[in-house]
């Protein structure tokens, strides 16, 4: 089959590789009809996630048709399914608590040592996201092997197009959980850093959960337009001092909840703000490979957040953040919630919201490409972020 594979920093190629097979009883093999490039794939593309090997198949947002099932799969051939990017056994303590992304059993035993050393515990399994999360082949390919297929995939009705349901795989539940983690109360002002697809879903989710107002922060005009279209007020951090603006827009209180939908490769370090000045140091450290995550958006979010407010962090971090404003966090009594998305927890609820047209899942798609052009998709999604807001790949076209 053809598949998008990693060959080093900023070098991805479509190669011919062996087809996937059923290995374990609960497996299924899916023929992929649509798959997307995620903002977090750019962290792999940029080479800032360790444990990514040459030849690894990337991609964790995908859907398609069931073509093969193991003896213990509950799926049937021909079913149309969306597959969560988190691989979860459904039986361990964490899965039973619906903390699916913390699953103890999906990440193979021999792959767990790396994150156990880095984080104190092994992380769960993810598709196409380095050997730290299991080394599972991803879905930017014609076919994919899906472990625990009786727990993860959701069968979707035929009348909903791929474009409408594809993002159930990651970014829609990720945006939704970020808003859920912000414990939104009626009348809240919520500030969202980053108007990529996850940020755009955060905006819609926060408003559906009862926020009075969402203020979205970015510097790409096209992305800010999309944020406005999703119902947010917007701040361009190249035009305006963000913390000042957030104070003035909330009568000096600050946002009740802040959401960092940016993560470890934050932009913006030239404006002289304390929070952003530190980001320059982070950038240099990341470039010379000493492994500090860039935390500009995160620092600014903590600085702006009201006393007793809440910080939700869907943005991906992998290592350490320097100059972390721990004092502000403690003295203001801010609550933090974070984590990889517990996708399976939200799937049925979100499918219903899509069917009822309460969430628009298609407006951020800027490009649809054949799988063969995936490398072009990566390059532009990285270098041309204003216009390339979301890329959907179509294998077999």
């Amino acid at each position, binding site marked *: 089959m053809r598949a998008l594979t990693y060959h080093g920093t900023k070098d991805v190629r479509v190669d011919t590789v*062996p*087809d*996937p*097979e059923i*290995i*374990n*009883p*609960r497996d299924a093999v899916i023929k992929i009809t649509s798959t997307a490039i995620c903002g977090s794939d750019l962290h792999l593309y940029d080479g800032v996630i*360790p*444990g990514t090997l040459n030849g690894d*198949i990337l991609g964790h947002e995908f859907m398609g048709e069931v073509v093969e099932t193991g003896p*213990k799969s509950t799926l049937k051939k021909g079913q149309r399914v969306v597959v969560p990017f988190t691989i979860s*056994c*459904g*039986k*361990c*303590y964490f899965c*039973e608590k619906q903390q699916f992304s913390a699953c*103890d*059993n*999906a*990440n*193979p*035993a*021999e*792959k*767990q*040592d*790396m994150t156990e*050393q*880095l984080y104190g515990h092994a992380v769960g*399994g993810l598709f196409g996201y380095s050997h730290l999360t*299991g*080394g*599972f*082949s991803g879905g930017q390919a014609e076919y994919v*092997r899906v*472990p*625990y297929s009786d727990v993860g995939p959701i069968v979707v009705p035929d009348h909903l197009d791929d474009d409408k349901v594809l993002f159930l795989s990651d970014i829609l539940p990720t945006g939704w959980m970020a808003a859920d983690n912000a414990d939104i109360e009626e009348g809240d002002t919520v500030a969202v850093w980053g108007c990529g697809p996850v940020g755009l879903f955060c905006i819609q989710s926060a408003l559906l959960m009862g926020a009075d107002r969402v203020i979205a922060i970015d510097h790409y005009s096209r992305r800010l337009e999309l944020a406005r279209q999703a119902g947010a007020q917007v701040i361009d951090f190249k035009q305006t001092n963000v913390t000042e603006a957030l104070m003035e827009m909330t009568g000096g209180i600050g946002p009740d909840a802040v959401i960092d939908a940016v993560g470890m490769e934050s932009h913006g370090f030239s404006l002289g703000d304390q929070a952003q000045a530190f980001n320059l140091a982070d950038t240099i450290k990341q470039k010379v*490979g*000493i*492994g500090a995550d860039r935390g500009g958006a995160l620092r600014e979010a903590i600085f702006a957040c009201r006393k007793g407010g809440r910080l939700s962090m869907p943005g991906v971090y*992998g*290592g*350490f953040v320097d100059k972390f404003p721990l004092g502000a966090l403690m003295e203001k009594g801010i609550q933090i919630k974070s984590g990889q998305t517990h996708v399976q927890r939200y799937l049925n609820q979100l499918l219903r919201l899509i069917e009822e047209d309460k969430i628009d899942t298609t407006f951020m798609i800027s490009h649809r490409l054949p799988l063969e052009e995936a490398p072009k998709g990566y390059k532009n999604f990285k270098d041309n972020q204003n216009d390339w807001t979301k890329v959907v790949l179509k294998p077999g076209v």
Partner: protein
Amino acid sequence: MSRHPIEVRGYRGPDPLPRLALFAAAGTAIALLAFAAKPLFGNSPAQRRRELEDDAPRRLSRERAGSPAFVGKSVLINRPRAELYDFWRDFELFPQFMENIRAVEVNGDVSTWTIAAPAGQTVTAEVEVVEDLRNERLAWKSTPQSQIETKGTIDFRDAPAGRGTYVDALIEYKPPGGAVGRAIADLFRREPHVQARHDLKRFKMLMEAGEVSTSWRTRRQS
């Protein structure tokens, strides 16, 4: 069970390289320095002066930590005690989750374990059950004919509030003499606790999820 390990000749202490390599892979220079400094300061004689015995398992005492001939590991498994005991009691199932055990043949209370050794060799251990408390504990010991001297116990305890079972494994071994023996000693010396940790994780996967997780894409990889 004796708290003293069987001595392994030529053991020079745990090798810190794998852990350091991990941090280096993450490019974390600062953490690396802090970590490298830890063995110098973390285990000072002052800290060894004990005013009370803590409640951690004795096998974790800093004075013996890293001993390769004595592997202990505890794992919480989200299944009832009886089910875990029954599976473990059937030694022939060991190869399903123990990477180095190629085959087990059971004859009454005595069983023969074929164990993979470096360079494609195998050794056998002849083992007899010395204690069998249904749903609670199993203990085994090698017979005088065995190529490897080994003994072990596994205990099953209820976790609170229906959270499953704590499984505690303790294994001691003494490798045979000769070239094979040295190879085995070398294997155990390099990865003393890794094997036990991985094997118990695979046991947990098998018990909870019904299969051992793998990221292979094709059967040929196996």
